[in-house]
């Protein structure tokens, strides 16, 4: 990390900041060879973000990390993005893409099949239905139209509605629909 500080002409204090970003401050005195796979991955991420690059390419940045550290990395990446870094993320984890990305592109056989904001994609591929869970645990699927609204009104009037969910597809569902294949 010190070498990279010198190469990028950065103050050494940046190291602590970068290690804080990947939640590794407590391991700053340890040798990299003694760290676990996940911790090593975090060191690499810290090194890549040390100089706050304008453009950052990440390939499966959280693949070997536990949920706590994954969330920590997500927060750090969002903060980095807010500071002005454009992040180009490659991932098979559709949940990760949904959480982190402003725009997603589905690649299949070397070609971009579709590219848009996750919310727009979900709207585009939505079947325009709602799932309503009733007090007797029964689930009713309603259309997002006038008929559905009337049925919903009736259910609410009878005080039977427990939860309402919009039936948007996940990015994984959309990928399968768009590519006709599976995530490999």
């Amino acid at each position, binding site marked *: 990390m*010190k*070498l*990279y500080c*010198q*190469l*990028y*002409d950065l103050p050494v204090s940046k190291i602590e900041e970068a290690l804080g970003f990947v939640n590794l401050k407590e391991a700053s005195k340890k040798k990299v060879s003694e760290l676990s796979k996940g911790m090593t991955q975090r060191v690499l991420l810290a*090194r890549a973000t040390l100089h706050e690059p304008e453009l950052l390419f990440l390939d499966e940045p959280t693949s070997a990390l536990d949920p706590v550290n994954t969330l920590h990395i997500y927060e750090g990446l969002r903060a980095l993005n807010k500071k002005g870094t454009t992040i180009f993320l490659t991932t098979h984890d559709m949940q990760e893409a949904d959480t982190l990305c402003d725009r997603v592109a589905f690649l299949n056989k070397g070609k971009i099949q579709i590219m848009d904001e996750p919310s727009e994609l979900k709207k585009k591929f939505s079947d325009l239905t709602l799932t309503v869970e009733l007090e007797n645990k029964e689930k009713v699927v309603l259309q997002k139209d006038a008929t559905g609204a009337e049925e919903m009104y009736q259910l609410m009037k009878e005080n039977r509605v427990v939860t309402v969910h919009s039936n948007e597809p996940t990015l994984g569902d959309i990928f399968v629909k768009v590519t006709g294949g599976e995530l490999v």
Partner: protein
Amino acid sequence: MTFSWKRVNAIFQKDYKDFSRNMAVSIVIFLPLIMAALYSRMGVDSIQGHFMTINMTFAMVGTYVQCCLIAEEKEKNTLRGLMLSPASTLEILGGKSLLSFVLTIVIIFFSAFLSEYKPANIAIVAVAIILSSLFYIGIGTLLGLVARSVMESSVIVLPVIGIFSVGSFVTVWAEKYPILKVVEYMPNVQLIDLAEKVEAGAGFADVLSNFGIISVWVVVVCLLTVSVFKKRMMD
């Protein structure tokens, strides 16, 4: 192309740490010193004898150590990190060569001290040694870039060590086999020729052809090294 001493120095310090931790490579630097000590005990006091240890230092320290340092960097994928950093090709190659250069010059100095070699004109010999060290370090860098692992690098460097440390003896058969005359243009043979001329009282002007031939070798090796390095920057 940018050049920052700070970056070169950072790479040099990193190399020094890597080198001091790698006993398999660092121990090699003592071989020329042992040879020089043995030669002086045996009473060898000829230019050929002195320059055998000097050429061995070039091959073992300049080429072998440099080759292993570069190959290790490649094997650990840290060379890629350097290539992606703001350090320019000149800074990376300069920084990566600085340790081998310093080691080569220091070992040659002590080898000459142990074998009691006192050149008649130290300035000419010093310039020739510095020029030659660039060639050997260049060859080491080139082989390190070509090798896929440290293990492979320590094998492919062996013929180079053989050719440049004892290759000068081939000139003995040049009379019988004229094709071996080409050996006379090798940098190690040119260096010995230069040193012999200096001992006979030659000045800078008298050894320009030797300097010229060694310089051509340096330029060719540097061009090859930079072109292979640039190729390695691409996936």
